[in-house]
């Protein structure tokens, strides 16, 4: 289960500290999604892994030992911008990077032809990269990342700009690599995709890891949530329910007919006292289970019920509750 491990990584640029004690683990055969807003520090973390940046503090290990230049040669990297020569034919490009990885000429040609076939680039071997669609450019980029038979893939926004079909293909290719025992760390803003594809997720916010674990672990914070829709303003319902111990209530200033109710515990059914309060209030239209998505986690929507965790979200919500 060993693989890549970052422990307490910090990095500053001048006076600006961009990484704060970042811990991250990518085991072999594991897909880890790296999410966070622009400027959160994802690319900097990846550059630390690749040795392009030295951390101010902390340690990067591979297979439980400090990572070496030789280890880093086994990392396949896909930068956020397309790291390709735009005026070089596809096959020549893959051969070039295969040679740089240490393959001999014949083996490099063999690797290139295999990758071209595997990634569905047949017929485009002699095309210049700049003449390919974005999806095909991504495939060439992935081919370049794979030419060294990597033990770890570090992919910076691999799905950026891809159409849904290309996203599916890229997802499948990443999953295949993981199934072969390759650890995969990728960043993405497509959170539904991360939820679906990743074994583990690491959320970075302004250089700090705010959450890390499997998607199920992250979604389960020991609370059950339901969104109750009413045909009229639900202020009195919210006020009544919020007096109940272990219950939090949130609803937006813009829509006072929908209430989000959080209840301590992981019960599947809406507690009776809440249903009773809704019936007393009248006009109940719908009850929908509302587990946290990664997007919610990232936006801090549900975290706002804890005082001070997400002040921005607190300001945007009218909060009614006694548990604060």
């Amino acid at each position, binding site marked *: 289960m060993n693989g890549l491990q970052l422990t307490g990584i910090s990095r500053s640029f001048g006076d600006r500290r961009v990484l704060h004690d970042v811990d991250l683990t990518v085991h072999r055969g594991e897909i880890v999604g790296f999410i966070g807003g622009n400027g959160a520090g994802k690319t900097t973390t990846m550059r630390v892994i690749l040795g*392009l940046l030295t951390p101010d503090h902390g340690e990067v290990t591979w297979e439980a030992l400090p990572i070496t230049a030789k280890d880093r040669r086994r990392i396949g990297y896909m930068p956020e911008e397309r790291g390709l*020569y735009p005026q070089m034919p596809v096959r*020549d490009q893959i051969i070039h990077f295969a040679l740089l990885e240490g393959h001999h000429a014949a083996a490099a040609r063999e690797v290139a032809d295999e990758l071209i076939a595997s990634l*569905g680039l047949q017929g485009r071997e002699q095309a210049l990269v700049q003449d390919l669609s974005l999806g095909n450019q991504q495939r060439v980029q992935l081919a370049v990342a794979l030419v060294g038979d990597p033990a770890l893939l570090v992919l910076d926004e691999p799905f950026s700009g891809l159409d849904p079909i290309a996203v599916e293909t890229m997802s499948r290719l990443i999953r295949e690599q993981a199934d072969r025992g390759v650890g995969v760390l990728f960043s993405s803003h497509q959170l539904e995709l991360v939820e679906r594809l990743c074994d583990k997720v690491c959320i970075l916010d302004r250089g700090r890891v705010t959450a890390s674990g499997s998607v199920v672990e992250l979604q389960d914070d020991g609370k059950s949530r339901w969104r109750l829709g009413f045909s009229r303003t639900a202020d009195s319902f919210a006020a009544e329910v919020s007096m109940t111990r272990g219950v939090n209530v949130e609803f937006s200033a813009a829509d006072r007919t929908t209430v989000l109710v959080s209840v301590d515990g992981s019960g599947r059914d809406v507690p009776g006292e809440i249903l009773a309060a809704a019936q007393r209030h009248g006009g109940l239209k719908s009850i929908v289970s509302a587990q946290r998505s990664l997007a919610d986690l990232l936006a801090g929507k549900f975290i706002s019920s804890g005082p001070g965790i997400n002040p921005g979200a607190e300001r945007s919500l009218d909060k009614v509750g006694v548990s604060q």
Partner: protein
Amino acid sequence: MSATTFDRTNRSTAPSSGSGLRETRLIIRREILTRLGNRTILTATGLLALFAGAVAGIGGWFLVDSFGGTGAMSFDPRAIFATAMISALLASLVYSASSLTSGVVEEKSSRIVEILLTKIGIVPLLAGKMIGIGLVTLVQLLAIGGTAVVGFSVVGGWSLINVAVGPSLLWFLLWFLLGYVIFAALNTTLASTVSRQEDLGTAVMPLSVLQMVLLVVSLYVLPMNMGNPWLEGLSFVPLFSSYLMPMRFALEDVSTWEMVLAAGISVAAIPALFWLATVIYRNNALRTGSRVSLQQSLTSDEMA
């Protein structure tokens, strides 16, 4: 969009670890192959070679026809030879600088540099790039200059010019190589401060201006001020020597030791300039956006 399963687990050939020399050779290979595969470059080189041969032939025929046998020329015929050499030097250095700097910016803007630096390091990358582009430029220079020499020879033009053609051309090649390497190191340094092609002209402008100044000094100022101690002193300074020494060699009797000393100084300067290029390139490799000042480039440490 379909793709079959990718599986290379049964590959018999495992990657071998690279060495700096091998990696430099691979970068050289890419630079050469990229240009050999570019029809525009091949066609332009061919046309320029034909043009140079035709111009040299017609010019030589005109000189022979006008002054052949009379010896009554109103100018020093060696100046024609020297001017041709300096012009060829300038054209070669400007062309190679353009090719080199645009390549540096292309790799930086597309982030290829991030992949390359994780795989091969900075010295093989820069050395391979400089040597590869230098070799292509040298071959182009030999092709274009060679046809010019042939064209001039066919009409008997050399009979009018009292210079030792062989040694002059060999020295010229040496000055080209030294000038190329020094300008390449400086151009790489300046190009690494930007990440957009549109900023490149501004970044390398100091060197472009310097080239023009050197052209004017070597073609117009030096011939009229032969023996000037300042100009003689400058002809030993790297960069200046590539332009001034060929001119002095053609127009006056320069001692061999002076040529060797000037060449030696340039050779000694190359490691220092290459080191400077690697430091600034390394510091700027991950920087994108607006141009980075040289001071910032020297004082910051962006890369491991």
